[in-house]
């Protein structure tokens, strides 16, 4: 269900890492991407929490 998102994110990260190393990301874009990454982390945390309690109920 999320495996393709993981793959896409890995690709996005590699591209971002190269652009950052080249200094090709403006500070405004970097701040915007940082906000996006924080949203991603919060969403992943929410999913982890839901699945963890689902699994513990299941077990």
């Amino acid at each position, binding site marked *: 269900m999320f495996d393709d998102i993981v793959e896409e*994110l890995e690709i*996005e990260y590699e591209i971002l890492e190269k652009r950052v190393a*080249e200094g090709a990301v403006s500070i405004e874009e970097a701040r915007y991407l940082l906000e996006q990454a924080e949203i991603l982390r919060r969403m992943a945390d929410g999913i982890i929490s839901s699945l963890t309690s689902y699994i513990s109920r299941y077990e």
Partner: protein
Amino acid sequence: MIDILIEELRLRRKTLEERMIRKDIDIEEARNLLEQARSIKRIAESMISLLSSYIAGREEREIAPPEVTEFIAEDVSAIIEKIADISVLELIILAMAYSKYATPEVKRTADAIKAYYRLTEEEVRIILNVLRGKE
């Protein structure tokens, strides 16, 4: 592109929650999805770390006086060329080697990383200062 992935993740999370309410997910699938969600979190954290350091470095340079900026620019362009392919994990190990977390194993690994990327002590210190938001 990340915003599209966030939107997609939001939709799939909704579907996942509906399926969990219906108990339509077996334990094996749930564990598999948990691993995938952890991977998403790890990548997001790597992005946060990368971007936070980058922003801190850029802000540091913006407030530096011109002569300092010129000096840093020369050093930094040489360093960037050397570490173009360095991974976040390798940077973390280098940072750990110069911290209170410097175990013998971390130091050995950091030495191997320095040798591989042909980094001098001074260059490593510049990299770490930038990552830590210091001059």
